[in-house]
């Protein structure tokens, strides 16, 4: 029988000091989860305002490249905070999360959302204001980004129900 290396990794995580601490502490998971929520507010708000700009909404008058550049620290930092807090929550019961279909879906969607959105935001941030033009591709990209991030959130909510 072939052993799934990902499952082996999850089983190992549960035996680490981190895994045991997260599992045994009554307040650690709650604190990390609250951190996840607070980061979600800032991260989500920044993502929303970046994508809205592609629709000529929100920060309408500023060049697209400037909005993308100014909000990059929030979206990148926020994304890192979401991933770290999410990872810590997972160490509370790695094998349980391994078998949770909503969690698997969320991780896949998160990877796709990160790759897609940050390609869009970083490429746009590097652009030059004088060469900017509102394009249908940017709007489609923003719409895809919003749908992807919303799906990540919904999958995250589903974790507790499946």
């Amino acid at each position: 029988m072939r052993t799934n290396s990902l499952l082996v990794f999850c089983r190992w995580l549960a035996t680490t000091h981190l895994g045991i601490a997260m599992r045994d502490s009554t307040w650690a998971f709650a604190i990390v989860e609250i951190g996840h929520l607070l980061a979600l507010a800032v991260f989500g708000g920044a993502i929303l305002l970046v994508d809205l700009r592609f629709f000529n909404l929100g920060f309408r008058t500023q060049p697209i490249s400037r909005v993308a550049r100014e909000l990059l620290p929030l979206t990148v930092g926020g994304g890192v905070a979401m991933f770290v807090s999410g990872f810590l929550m997972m160490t509370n019961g790695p094998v349980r999360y391994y078998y949770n279909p909503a969690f698997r879906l969320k991780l896949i969607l998160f990877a796709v959302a990160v790759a897609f959105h940050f390609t869009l935001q970083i490429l746009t941030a590097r652009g030059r204001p004088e060469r900017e033009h509102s394009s249908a591709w940017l709007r489609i990209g923003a719409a895809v980004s919003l749908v992807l991030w919303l799906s990540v959130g919904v999958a995250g909510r589903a974790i507790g129900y499946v």
Partner: protein
Amino acid sequence: MPVALEICRWIYATRFSTAIRESVWLFPIIESIHVLSITVLAGTIAVFDLRLLGVLMKRDPVSTIARQVLPWTWAGFVVMLVTGTLLSIAEAATNYYNPAFRIKLILLVLAGLNPLIFHTSIFRRVESWDVGTAIPIRARAAAVISLGLWSGIIVAGRMIAYLEKP
């Protein structure tokens, strides 16, 4: 029995409240919209507060950022108010005794007073500090208080489920 408790128990017993509370799908969906819409309400407020603190979008006048961001904040507020009210109706009787719920309501009132005071006082004279780095201490205080209050509201909201007494 206190009037408020009687009202909460009456609400809790209605078919409307019971339907939301006992439905397999309805409560989770309403709650999910509520949680995910935190980004629209608190997230946009956070970005505006960060502008007030001179952290980002420093080249843009504060009044411009306010005009561009706050309509979306209001849209988020409407969604949060509607979903929050529905959730509160569904859990009226149990929420009455929940300290996290009471604290959240108090913080929400304060979070409403803070921008009210801000917009009717120091923001009225925004032309004098719209651009540049010399943001008045009262504006920066309002931003810090706002970030603190909304963080508290989010924390209190999450604690409701932890402190629920059956």
